[in-house]
């Protein structure tokens, strides 16, 4: 056996193995997952492009050269840093890092392979066995609705705890109003990583997800606590309970009015994670795929920002082929005329979201920063590490950043979403 033959075989098997990992090649009949954003050929082209751009500081002077990979409004932002409160000397800048595939946790991969073949969809596009399955229901989505379902099924590690701290920014004004809150999230269904999977057996109220907040700032909300329960039933509104510290009362509050802005920020209740509501409340149209520069592996601790500066410097963005989905609310009086989602094809998390007003004029643009965090099982999970919320009509911004404490935490349990826990406050 010649050395050449051994080398050829090695290269062949190595290539085949890489192909398996990157493209999720699997025996016929088995679900192909994980699915990489790029095929081998596409990746090769991306790597070629990266040779020019990785490590480069992108700013006003060279933003046009990568403009095709950014939402139009963001290009305008980098072209006019003064308008957005950036100091004259520094301006606004970011850098480009190489694309890195995000592999979901073993739990997500296993659940996807187990449940994806059994997904049952009715004529309206609803998943009939919605509460009984987990993972990514459509590993190779063909429609906007399937992408939306995949987004909906990401349980952010099933349970997590993070602190969200950030300013509400009027560009150029150095006095900022801060929000600071502890947030806890727990999924009753679609669970993949923390037992019980795929769902809590004991769920008489039919809860989908609970979100618990302990607010520290702004001061008028200090020590107020709130939890929101989302139900599996698409026709049932969320329930919200609040311990409002200044009144020292437990209040059941209306969380059905999803278009109210939160704490002076640029976000409405529906904007959490890009969309925070029942999937069936919108229509979805897959526009196609678009390569964008996205923040998927960003260390938010490295962000630099002067008071009054709308967008932080030192964001790192990598190129990825996002799914572009046009989202319209079925409510004709909805606040936004439409949303454009740019969805990560590997995690189905939102990377960018553009909002348009009722006259279809560009209004807001949100960038969701992501980072890999170690789960309590020791695996890596790509999680939202913060959001840059930009209102282009009002020239205003908010920058809530997440300090993630735990992913896949068993400390976040069902008891937290009870009135008795809510009133364990001061």
């Amino acid at each position, binding site marked *: 056996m010649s050395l050449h033959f051994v080398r050829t075989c090695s290269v062949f098997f190595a290539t085949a193995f890489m192909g398996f990992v990157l493209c999720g090649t699997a025996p016929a009949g088995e679900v192909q997952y994980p699915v990489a954003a790029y095929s081998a050929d596409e990746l090769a082209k991306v790597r070629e492009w990266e040779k020019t751009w990785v490590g480069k500081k992108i700013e006003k002077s060279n933003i046009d050269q990568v403009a095709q990979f950014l939402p139009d409004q963001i290009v305008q932002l980098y072209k006019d840093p003064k308008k957005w409160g950036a100091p004259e000397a520094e301006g606004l800048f970011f850098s480009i890092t190489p694309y890195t595939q995000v592999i979901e946790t073993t739990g997500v991969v296993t659940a996807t392979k187990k449940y994806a073949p059994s997904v049952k969809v009715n004529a309206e596009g609803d998943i009939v066995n919605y509460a009984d399955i987990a993972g990514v229901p459509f590993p190779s989505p063909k429609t906007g609705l399937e992408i939306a379902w995949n987004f909906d099924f990401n349980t952010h590690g099933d349970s997590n705890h993070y602190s969200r701290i950030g*300013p509400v920014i*009027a560009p150029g004004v150095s006095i900022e109003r801060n929000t600071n809150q502890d947030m806890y999230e727990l999924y009753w269904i679609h669970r993949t990583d923390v037992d019980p999977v795929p769902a809590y057996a004991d769920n008489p109220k039919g809860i989908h997800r609970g979100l618990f907040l302990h607010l520290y700032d702004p001061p*008028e909300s200090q020590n107020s606590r709130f939890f929101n329960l989302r139900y599996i039933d698409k026709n049932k509104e969320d329930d919200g309970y609040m311990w409002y510290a200044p009144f020292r009362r437990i209040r059941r509050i*209306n969380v059905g009015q999803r278009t109210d802005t939160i704490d002076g920020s640029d976000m409405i209740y529906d904007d959490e994670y890009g969309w925070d509501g029942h999937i069936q409340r919108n229509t979805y149209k897959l526009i196609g795929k678009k390569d964008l520069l996205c923040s998927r592996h960003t260390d938010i601790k490295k962000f630099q920002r002067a008071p009054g500066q709308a967008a932080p410097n030192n964001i790192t963005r990598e190129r990825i082929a996002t799914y572009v989905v046009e989202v319209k609310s079925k409510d004709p009086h909805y606040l936004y005329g439409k949303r454009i989602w740019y969805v990560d094809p590997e995690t189905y998390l939102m990377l960018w979201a553009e909002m348009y007003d009722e006259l279809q004029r560009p209004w807001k643009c949100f960038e969701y920063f992501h980072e890999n965090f170690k789960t309590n099982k020791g695996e890596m999970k790509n999680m939202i590490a913060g959001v840059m919320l930009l209102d282009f009509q009002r020239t205003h911004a908010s920058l809530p950043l997440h300090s993630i404490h735990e992913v896949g935490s068993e400390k976040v349990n069902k008891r937290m979403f009870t009135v*008795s826990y809510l009133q364990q406050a001061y």
Partner: protein
Amino acid sequence: MKKGIATAGILIGCVCFLLAAPSAQATVFLMDGKLQVNGYFKEQAYLRLDIPKTEDHFHKSNFDFVRTSLFFESLYKMHESEDYTINLFTGFRYYWMHDPHIDSQLKRGIPSCSYKEYTHPRGEDFITEAYVHFIKGPFELRAGKQIVVWGETDIKRTADVINPLDVRYGSPGTEDWETLKLGLWMLRGFYQTDLPGNLMFEMLVIPGDFKYTRVPIEGTHYGPSPANTSFNPGKGFGIYEWVQEKARRDAPGWGLRNTEVGFKIRGYTWDIDWSIFYFNTRNDSPTANGNFSKFANTYVFSGLKSILTGSKIDPKFPGYKVFNYKRYEVIGGTAQTIIEKLHGSEWRFEWFYEMGNHFNKGTNNDSSEIYAECERDTVGGGLVYSDRFTIPWFTHSLANDKKLSLSLSMFYEKVLGDFHDIIIYESGRGHRPGDSHATEFVWSISQQLFQSQVMLMFTGSYNPIGKYFLCPILSYAPGSHWRWEMALPIYGSKASGNKGLHDKDSILFRIRYEF
């Protein structure tokens, strides 16, 4: 002098600590997050819009309320494990009423026996709350000085019956409950069951602590002017203070005979969050006994003597008891739900039934003609509707898509049984003299503007007897610490004998540094 320097030193020290806080965040975390501290430093003043001519000689300026206050809250996590948690919570306050220092004529109108109590906190008043909180699974126990809220409504107290109020410096609508309520030393336990309806049981025992309702002091902003209550204004306190001081002196101190007990069950049925409760308590407000006429006459004689001789009104408080704080029981409940079909509005209801509460009887319901005490049952309730609205163009263009909040409430109560000569109209419960029932409507409208930096609020109440309270409020909070507020509390009443604060229309200025 030394005390004044020490006080100033403490205040300056606290302010320096606050301003030097390392973080832009308001809440301060210390000891790796084990200790959480927050609070505020507040400067507050009322500028009276009009001072009646009869009160002229008790005022040099229209500022009749100027207060500096400091409030600290700390939560110390003593032990935190999956098995159990122990926390220690303390609330500390200090205030300094400047108005008598600024206005020497105003000082003349404040009775000397109440002066110190008015200008600074005394005794345990420094501590608003101090308790150990033990949590183990579904059990929870809180032991120490606490403020308990059992009601659901905002401005009126219907089912909120545990803690007495301190309305010397403010009233609901202009101050938050934390400031108005007096903590009581108690044991309070909870048990969250797994029973249907998420039933949660709560029990509290107040073993001996008793505090009476602190009513406004004569000559101060919230109290009546000695010009209206004194036989010889300027020559000593009025009959109001004579009565209130005696009521304070007759109040029971610590003692097991004061023990108060309460139970509460909270649950969730048919999409309604409800609670029912029972509380056996001693009334925080007194009734007068048969000695009242004799006691009142003592003041009248001293007053007449003052008029005739020009001497100071200076009666001696008698040793006999005039006021009793009698025991009664109350059962009640609350309910709240969201009605999706009504614009997703929030609805809250609370009710009470007081059993054997004590009242005085006076000829023609006149409090100066008291002749007997009696027991009556009282029933009442309150219904609150809250919602948020989008106003076309305004909400989007001026309010950054922050909706307008609206809350409307209606309260009703009735004293059951024979109402002949019963005195209740001065109690603040909204009755017309001679009426066994009272109704009140309360509203609150608020709108946040400029990304919540500015808030406009309009709150108020109307009682069909012709009594009203209107209070537009403007609040500006530009960053994480400072809050500037201005309000215009306006009071009015067409009801003779129930005038309330009808001549106290003011501009309220409030600056807070919050941390």
